[in-house]
């Protein structure tokens, strides 16, 4: 049982730092965003599980041969005043840390949910007074504002997609359709649940590299997933133009309409500068989205994708096994 706590600790450290750093620098997630998303979720879940598990297993080591026996003995001490002499200072320290971390994670998850829901409710209230229904269909609102803005506000049956006057003036019908399909993809694929979980993960452990890298990557991956849905019905050129017009209009001057050139063939130059721009997370997201659309690379081959998914499953199975197997062997 003792070795299990060391292995869990090693796994926790590997998943907290080197693995997320490598994955966030990798090029392949842009080729198969869905597969990459599965891997990020596995890294976060397995990371949290092994962090808590390492401390729990270490702390329970003197009082039980396996997790179940240890927890039972611990319950005896906490609930029925059984003698605690078997536990040393560091064991009690580790058990308390495990309990605190678990509570902290659960609490942060709930608190983040509450905060997000409150902001959304307030936002929806104001929208119901300020925005008017759009001709684009139910669940789409138009707000009078000059800069080109499009966003969706998730909320179950009350989810809405909001467009600004400025956006509708700057985009042609096909481009507007691409924007709407993109936003609706966020809603139908329930990306807000991923955003919530990873926002809470970062909020709970902001000093851990993995939480920041994971949130940035997930933010960027969901945009790619939504772009891919839009590409099923609208052309690549249409989507790129929509992105470029909205992006160039929302940075400072709102003259998106003046920038409209005549449509012609796709130019493949000019993306290196875009991809190299540093700055805010979302700026990098936009740059990587555009460069991904301009010079598309093929999706990862199916065997490699299966391998990544299998690796994700293994990643989750490993800490679970380390927690459970000593009990089965004993």
């Amino acid at each position, binding site marked *: 049982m003792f070795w299990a706590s060391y292995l869990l600790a090693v796994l926790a450290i590997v998943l907290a730092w080197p693995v997320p750093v490598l994955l966030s620098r990798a090029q392949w997630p842009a080729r198969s965003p869905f597969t990459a998303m599965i891997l990020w979720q596995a890294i976060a879940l397995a990371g949290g599980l092994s962090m808590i598990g390492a401390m729990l297993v270490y702390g329970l080591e003197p009082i039980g041969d396996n997790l179940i026996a240890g927890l039972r003995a611990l319950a005896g001490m906490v609930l029925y005043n059984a003698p605690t002499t078997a536990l040393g200072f560091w064991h009690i320290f580790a058990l308390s840390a495990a309990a605190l971390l678990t509570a902290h994670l659960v609490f942060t998850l709930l608190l983040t949910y509450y905060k997000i829901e409150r902001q959304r409710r307030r*936002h929806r*209230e104001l929208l119901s007074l300020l925005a008017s229904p759009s001709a684009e269909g139910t669940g789409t609102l138009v707000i009078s504002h000059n800069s080109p803005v*499009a*966003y969706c506000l998730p909320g179950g049956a009350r989810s809405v997609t909001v467009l600004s006057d400025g956006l509708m003036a700057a985009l042609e019908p096909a481009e507007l359709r691409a924007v709407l399909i993109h936003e609706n993809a966020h809603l139908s694929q329930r990306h807000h649940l991923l955003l919530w979980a990873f926002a809470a993960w970062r909020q709970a452990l902001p000093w851990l590299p993995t939480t920041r890298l994971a949130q940035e990557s997930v933010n960027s991956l969901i945009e790619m997933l939504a772009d891919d849905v839009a590409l099923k019905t609208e052309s690549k050129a249409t989507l790129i133009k929509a992105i*470029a017009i909205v992006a160039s209009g929302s*940075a400072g001057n709102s003259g998106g309409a003046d920038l409209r050139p005549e449509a012609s063939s796709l130019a493949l130059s000019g993306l290196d*500068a875009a991809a190299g721009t540093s*700055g805010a997370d979302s700026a990098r*997201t936009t740059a990587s989205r555009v460069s991904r659309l301009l010079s598309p690379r093929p999706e990862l081959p199916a065997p490699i994708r299966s391998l990544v998914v299998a690796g994700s499953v293994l990643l989750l199975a490993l800490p679970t096994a380390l927690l459970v197997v000593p009990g089965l062997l004993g």
Partner: protein
Amino acid sequence: MASLGELERAVMDLLWAGQEAATANTLRDRLAQTSAGQDGAAGHEGKELAVTTVLTVLSRLEKKGLVERERGTRPHRYQAVSSREDHTAELMHEVLGSAPDREAVLARFIGSVSEGEAETLRKLLGHL
């Protein structure tokens, strides 16, 4: 008659359009006028909007921080806390701003872009 949500919207529209504070009675009369103007008197005969309903709507709006009432006078006179434009600006600030939770609250088509990147995209548009 219209739902509370629709009434809230109608009352706010009146308050935003009107220059000065109005009593619940005045608001009710104006609401009756606009609804009569919109779809003729036919639909709402005998279902006159009650002042108490308007007061309910006003107190809901007050709780939401959208309406304030002048306490000195009776009956109370109500007015909008800030203009429609200010509220829109507030809303857009929430959307365009960089509050830490924003990315989890709503998903924007395009996140904030730097001036340099916007320039690159403008050049790119020239090529398209």
